[in-house]
């Protein structure tokens, strides 16, 4: 009887902590992205509000909150407002099974990986709803793109994750991390480099980040599925994008980069460092490459990533079985 409230308490505390930290991380990431983009482009980025402009995202958030919420003529009022909420809510859940440090985990479930993959699939629904309910042609095109893209990239993502699960023999993230060691050569990336590569590319596709930002390709579809959103409606999409980035990078860290393992420094610090490095890579990719075309995006997925992921999975399965016999 006693155990259940304790678990519940843990989840509630975790949820609150996650909600706060997701919001915070979102804001920080907005700042980091703008600052990095600025420096790449040899300009300062935000620098006016607060030291080095750290408070700029906060001001922007305030501005977004203060803006009028506008709904276009002919839009579906329920779905239109449901979409941004739906884009943000699952992100909170995605953080639950993430092991930030040794034993620091909101929800320790033995199917944590499955939970993450299942909930991350929800994001595409919000893109679809947003585009469809906006009564806007750009939105519709963006939604169509978004769905095709998300559906396609989910498969290699899953397959690459599955390969790691084979190696670890578990779908529990904490377990997967524990099985890896302190030093880089003890990490899964050494045994599964291809899976890591596939995961990163698919993750870019899955989170609609450049160079795969087709659903919102602003030079073609103005802003794609969120063309018609103003104020916090847009703000939620925006925040969800960054939160999603954090999730995929965290999962990558846990699966491939040894999670919280690392010498000298405490676990959570290592975790944050690794996640930041991955995110920096994603930010750099965005500010370096042009956008791929839609058919190319699908070609990359179906012709390259998927066969590679399948081959990788089979090979892994083979070796894992071999190791069992040996």
């Amino acid at each position, binding site marked *: 009887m006693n155990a259940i409230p304790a678990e519940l308490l843990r989840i509630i505390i975790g949820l609150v902590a996650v909600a706060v930290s997701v919001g915070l991380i979102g804001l920080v990431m907005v700042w980091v992205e703008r600052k990095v983009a600025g420096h790449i482009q040899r300009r300062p980025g935000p620098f006016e509000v607060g030291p080095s402009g750290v408070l700029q995202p906060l001001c922007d958030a305030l501005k977004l909150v203060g803006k009028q919420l506008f709904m276009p003529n002919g*839009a579906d009022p329920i779905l239109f407002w449901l979409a941004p909420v739906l884009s943000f809510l699952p992100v909170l859940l995605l953080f639950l099974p993430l092991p930030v440090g040794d034993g620091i985990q909101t929800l320790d479930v033995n199917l944590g990986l499955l939970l993450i993959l299942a909930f991350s699939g929800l994001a595409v629904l919000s893109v679809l709803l947003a585009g469809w309910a906006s009564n806007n042609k750009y939105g*519709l*095109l963006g939604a169509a793109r978004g769905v095709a893209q998300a559906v396609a990239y989910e498969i290699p993502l899953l397959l690459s994750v599955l390969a790691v699960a084979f190696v670890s023999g578990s779908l529990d993230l904490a377990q997967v991390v524990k099985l890896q060691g302190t030093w880089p050569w003890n990490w899964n990336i050494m045994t599964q480099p291809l899976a890591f590569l596939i995961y990163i590319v698919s993750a870019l596709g899955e989170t609609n980040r450049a160079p795969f930002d087709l659903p919102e*390709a602003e030079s073609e*579809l103005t802003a794609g599925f969120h063309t018609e959103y103003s104020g916090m409606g847009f703000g939620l999409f925006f925040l969800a994008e960054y939160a999603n980035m954090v999730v995929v990078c965290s999962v990558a860290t846990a699966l491939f980069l040894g999670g919280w393992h690392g010498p000298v420094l405490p676990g959570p610090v290592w975790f944050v460092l690794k996640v930041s490095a991955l995110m920096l890579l994603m930010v750099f990719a965005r500010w370096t490459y042009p*956008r791929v075309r839609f058919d*190319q995006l699908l070609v990359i997925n179906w012709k390259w990533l998927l066969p590679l992921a399948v081959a990788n999975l089979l090979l892994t399965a083979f070796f894992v079985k071999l190791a069992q016999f040996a």
Partner: protein
Amino acid sequence: MTTSQNNDHLAGDFYTQNFAKTAKDGNLILNLGPQHPSTHGVLRVVVELDGEYVMRAEPILGYLHRMHEKMAEVKTAAQFIPNMGRVDYGHALGWNWAFVGAVEKLADIEVPERAEYVRVITCELNRIASHLLWWGAYLLDLGAFTPIMYAFDDREKVLDILQIPTGSRLTYSYFRIGGVAQDLNADCIRLIRAFIPWFRSRLPMYKDLVSDNIILRKRIEGIGVIEPDACRRFGATGPVARGSGINYDVRRATPYSMYPKLDFVVPTSELKDARGRYDVRMIEMEQSLRIIEQALDLMPEGEVLVKGAPKPSWKVPKGEAYFAVEGARGKIGAYVVSDGGKNIYRTKLRAPGFCNLSLFAEVSKGTILADAVAILGSLDLIIPEIDR
């Protein structure tokens, strides 16, 4: 879409309705512009989409129409020169030159040699600035954000140089009938000399960051193929024609000013696609550097404005003249017909972008929307020039 409200009042304007008449049932009619990130100003393109495929497209002009040809009628020849800087903000000096050249041809005015060289130098610098602007904006169309910042870094340097003799940074009104307004001073020449090697050193970076990038190559290779025959039928000139393998450059075809004395290559590409046009422009920037280098060495001392240059009360001699220069976007032509009054009787401005854009409807047929945007960008459009 989900609710059936009466949206008849939003059903479209004259052009959309006209376009929709012949659209296939069930196709999506999409209005790109006049406010759209990739139409570079206020161009509007109505497209009929089947899924993401463009079944047909129709550019709609006139959102930036300023009736320059009427203004030419009510102003004296010299007073019209500032207008030329506003026709094409990308390559303002090319337009300066076309108009001034036409009037000089009509009035048979000989321009001092130094002025000719000054014109060549400033015009080529302006061409570099224009191509850089195109380069950056084109990559923005293709979804790369950073290149435009690097391009503008370089472009600023060109503008800094051009600011010294012209006094402005974009809408130059620098050429005069019979010469130029101001000589290049020592400071300016020093800056130009410093700019040439510096810009050359930047070009490999452009290549590394963008030209060689696999994503970009896949985006622009094989799209928007323009056959030489289409160039003829639509009157496309400049990098668009040269990208289709036509070796036509007004600087070589109908030589003017000091270009016959200068050694440069007219780049052409047999690819005929957006890549061909891209390559041609990139090489053209290098060639412009070469031209500037030579012109600086060859430039004699002397006056930059002919003695007895037209006064405000000058009457343009009777007759007609057509003068064309090679602008950054193609053949810029000015056709002037004078009845002997102060004001030119009729001025016709031939805008290269106008003809290049008219190709778009044909080239974009059957492409994906993203390609249509990439093709539109590869034509290098400056809307004020097209609308005039």
